[in-house]
C-alpha cells in the first residue's frame, strides 16, 4: 500500500541534505515538534514517550510477591484495541518493550490481553488474525459491544423504567431511548465500550486497563465531554487512576493512557515507519484513520452537520488545531489533567452521592441542586413529558440524562 511518511522537506531542500536536528548525522525527513529530524530519532522519540509512561505504570502496579528463578511475569494488563492507529501503535510499542526485555535475558515484564470490542453482534473471528500472527506474545479476544448491555454495572431500571429487562441489542436500546440523535448514540456507545473493557479487565484479573488515547484524543475528549455536560466527571475520564468498575464501585480498576504525551499526527506518522508498517494491520476503513491520514486537510465530506456526533465535530476541529498549533493541543490536555476528582455531597454529612446508573461516574448532587435552582424545574418540561415522570429519578448524571432522555 501507499505509505508516505509526512513529507516535510521540499524538493529544493532535498538537493542539499538537511541534517537531523537531534543526531546531526542522518538526513532529516520528518517534522517533529517544529524540528526536522531523521527517521531514527523520530521513532526513538515516540518510543521514549511511551516507555516513560509504561515505567510509571510498572511502579503503580506492584509486582506480585516475587518467586525466585523463572516465575511467570508478575504484571498483567488489558489493552483496549479499537484497530485504529493509536491503539495499534500502543500494542506495537508494548510488544517492542517485551521483546527488548526478552532479548536482555529478562522475563517478559507483563502479560497482556488485547481486547477488541466490535460493534457487530457477531464479529468475524478473522479480524484479529493478522494481529495475533504479528504479536505472538499476547492473547487476543473479540467481544461484541452488545455484551455490555448485560453488565450489572448498568442499572437499566433507572434508564428504561418502562421496560422490564435489559435491552438485548444496541438497535433495541436506541429505538427505546427518547433521545436518539447521533450525538446521543455515539455518547452511549463510548460509555458501553468503556464499561465492557473495565469489566473484562476485572474478570481477567488484569491490574490495569490500557487505552491508546493520544494527546490529541485527550484534548478532544476534554472538550467533547464539556460539550456534553460531563465537566464534573472529566477528571475520571482523562486522568490515569483508579476507576469504579463494579455495580457499586466495589471494584476499582486502574485506567492508564501510555500515549498521552504523543500527538495523533505523530502516531499516524509512526504507523508508516515500523517495518513492516503498521498500516498493513489497520483496517483502511477505520474512520479515525481515514479522517486523519487523508490527503492534506483530509476530512470526509459531510452530508449533514446534524448527523455528526459531538466527538466528530471535535475531532475535525482538533485535526485543524493540531496541524497548525500542536502545542495548544498539548496544553489543553495538560491543563485539563490538573482538574481534581471531587466526590460531591460530603460536606453536609450526607455521605457519597453514589454513582450514575449508566456511566458509573460519581453523581454531582451539589451541581444538580444548583442547576435546578438556576434553570427552574420547567427547563426540560417541554422536550419530555413531565418532570415528575422523568426517568432516571435522580440516578442519572447530567450528561447521561441528556443522552438518554434528551
Amino acid at each position, binding site marked *: 500500500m501507499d505509505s508516505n511518511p509526512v513529507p516535510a522537506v521540499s524538493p529544493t531542500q532535498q538537493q542539499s541534505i538537511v541534517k537531523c536536528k537531534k543526531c546531526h548525522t542522518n538526513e532529516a525527513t520528518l517534522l517533529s515538534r517544529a524540528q526536522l529530524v531523521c527517521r531514527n530519532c523520530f521513532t526513538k522519540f515516540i518510543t521514549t514517550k511511551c516507555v516513560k509512561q509504561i515505567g510509571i505504570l510498572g511502579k503503580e502496579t506492584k509486582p506480585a510477591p516475587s518467586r525466585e528463578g523463572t516465575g511467570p511475569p508478575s504484571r498483567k494488563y488489558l489493552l483496549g484495541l479499537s484497530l485504529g492507529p493509536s491503539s495499534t501503535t500502543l500494542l506495537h510499542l508494548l510488544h517492542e518493550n517485551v521483546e527488548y526485555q526478552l532479548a536482555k535475558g529478562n522475563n517478559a515484564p507483563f502479560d497482556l490481553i488485547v481486547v477488541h470490542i466490535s460493534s457487530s453482534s457477531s464479529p468475524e473471528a478473522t479480524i484479529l488474525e493478522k494481529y495475533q500472527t504479528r504479536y505472538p506474545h499476547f492473547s487476543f479476544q473479540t467481544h461484541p459491544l452488545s455484551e455490555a448491555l448485560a453488565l450489572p454495572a448498568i442499572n437499566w431500571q433507572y434508564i428504561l423504567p418502562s421496560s422490564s429487562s435489559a435491552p438485548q441489542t444496541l438497535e433495541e436500546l436506541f429505538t427505546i431511548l427518547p433521545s436518539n440523535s447521533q450525538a446521543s448514540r455515539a455518547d452511549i456507545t463510548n460509555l458501553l465500550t468503556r464499561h465492557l473493557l473495565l469489566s473484562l479487565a476485572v474478570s481477567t484479573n488484569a491490574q490495569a486497563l490500557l487505552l491508546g488515547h493520544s494527546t490529541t484524543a485527550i484534548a478532544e475528549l476534554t472538550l467533547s465531554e464539556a460539550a456534553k455536560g460531563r465537566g464534573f466527571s472529566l477528571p475520571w475520564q482523562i486522568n490515569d487512576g483508579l476507576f469504579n468498575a463494579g455495580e457499586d464501585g466495589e471494584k476499582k480498576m486502574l485506567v492508564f493512557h501510555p500515549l498521552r504525551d504523543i500527538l495523533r499526527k505523530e502516531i499516524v506518522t509512526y504507523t508508516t515507519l515500523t517495518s513492516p508498517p503498521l498500516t498493513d494491520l489497520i483496517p483502511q476503513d477505520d474512520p479515525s484513520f481515514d479522517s486523519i491520514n487523508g490527503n492534506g486537510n483530509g476530512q470526509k465530506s459531510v452530508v449533514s*452537520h446534524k448527523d455528526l456526533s459531538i466527538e466528530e465535530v471535535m475531532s475535525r476541529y482538533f485535526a485543524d488545531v493540531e496541524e*497548525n498549533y500542536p502545542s495548544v493541543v498539548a496544553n489543553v490536555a495538560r491543563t485539563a489533567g490538573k482538574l481534581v476528582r471531587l466526590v460531591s455531597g460530603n460536606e453536609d454529612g450526607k455521605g457519597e452521592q453514589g454513582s450514575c446508573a449508566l456511566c458509573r461516574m460519581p453523581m454531582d448532587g451539589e451541581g444538580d441542586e444548583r442547576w435546578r435552582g438556576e434553570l*427552574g424545574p420547567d427547563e426540560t418540561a417541554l422536550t419530555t413529558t413531565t418532570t415528575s415522570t422523568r426517568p432516571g429519578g435522580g440516578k442519572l448524571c447530567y450528561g447521561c440524562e441528556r443522552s438518554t432522555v434528551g
Partner: protein
Amino acid sequence: MAPSLCAICRTERALIKRPKNYAKLCKACFIKVFEDEVHHTITSSQLFHPGEKVAIGASGGKDSTVLASVLKTLNKRHGYGLDLVLLSIDEGIKGYRDDSLETVKRNALQYEMPLKVVGYDELYGWTMDQVVETIGKKGNCTYCGVFRRQALDRGAKMLGIKHVVTGHNADDVAETVLMNLLRGDLSRLSRSTSIVTGDDRSEVKRSKPLKYSYEKEIVLYAHHKKLDYFSTECIYSPEAFRGSARSLIKQLERVRPSAILDIVRSGEDMARLVPGESPSSCACKRQKTPAAPVVEDDIGGCGSSNGRTPGGEMAAMDKQLRENEEHSGLETDIAKTISENKQAEMEKPKELPIRSANAASKGGRQTLGNCKRCGYMSSQDICQACTLLEGLNKNRPQIQI
C-alpha cells in the same frame, strides 16, 4: 400538514421553533417563556434588592437592548423596585460607535430610562480611532477591552451606582468556557461562569441576567418585540481564540441544541474542580450568590461579541508554549528559571515587567489591591489600563500649543 399548535397554550398556531430545545411555540408564549426564564435566573440568584439603582451596560446591540427591554418589563411586572439607568461607553470608533450610540439614545426614550455616555477620550485622553492610528489594527482590541471594563465601572461610579448588568448571553459564557479550556487558563475558567462578579469589597458589582439565554432566542425576542437595535459588528474585529471557540460552539449547537447550556453547566462544575478553588459555591443555600472577584477580566469584551485579544493569539501562544518545552528540556537550573519566567510572562502577556513589592505573589494566586495611579482595583501595583496608557502616551507626539 396541519399547522401545529403552540406547545404551551395549545390554542395559537406555533410559529416559533425554540432554538434551545426545538419546542414549537406561538409568538406570545415564546416572549412570555423567555421573560419567565430571565425572571427565574434573577430571583434564584437574588441578583437585585428592592430600590437598587442598576446601570445597564448598553451598546445598542441586540443583547443589551433585549436586556434593557426585558428588565423594564420584569421590573414592572414583578415589582422589583429597580431604578434602571442606561450606561454607554463611547470608545470613539467612527462609523461604528457613533451610529450605535444613536440607537442607545432612541432606546433611552423608548424605555424612559436616563442615559449616561462615558467617552474613552474623557476617561483616558484617547479615542479608539487614535489608538489604532498609533499602534495599528493588530492588538488594539486589548486596549479596547481593558479600557471598557474600567470605563463601565467609572461610569457607574459617576452615577453613584454600584451594580452594572451586562448583556452577556449563554453563547458568550459557553464560548468563554471553551476558550479558557483551549488557552489552558484554569483560574479564568473558575471565574468566568459566575453570574455575579465583584463582591461587597469592590465598588461596583457586575452581573449577567441573560447568562442562560441563547443568542438565537435573544435575536428572536428582539425581532418579535420589534426592538430597535444596531447590528453592525465592530470594524476592528479580530480573529482569535474567541473566534475559534465561537465557530466551534455554532457547530456543536447544530449537532445538539442543548450543547450551549451543557457547556455552561460543565463550566460551572469544572470551576469547582480547579485546584485551590473552594469546592462549595452553591447559590441555593440561602446565602447571597457567591461572587467571583473581578480581577481585570470579564467575558466577551466588546458589544460585538468579538474578542479583546489580538489576532494570531493562537499562533503566538503555540510558539510560546513550544519555547517553554524547549527550555524545560535543558536540564540546568538556569534554563529552568528562564523557562519559568517565560511562563510567568505568558500568563500576563500584556504587562510591562514592573518591579514591585508584591512581585512574589505573581506566580501564585492573585491578590486584590488598588492601582497606585487611578485607584481602580488591580492585582498589580499599576493596573492594566494605566500600563497601556503609559505605553501609548510615550509614543504620542508632543503637540505644541
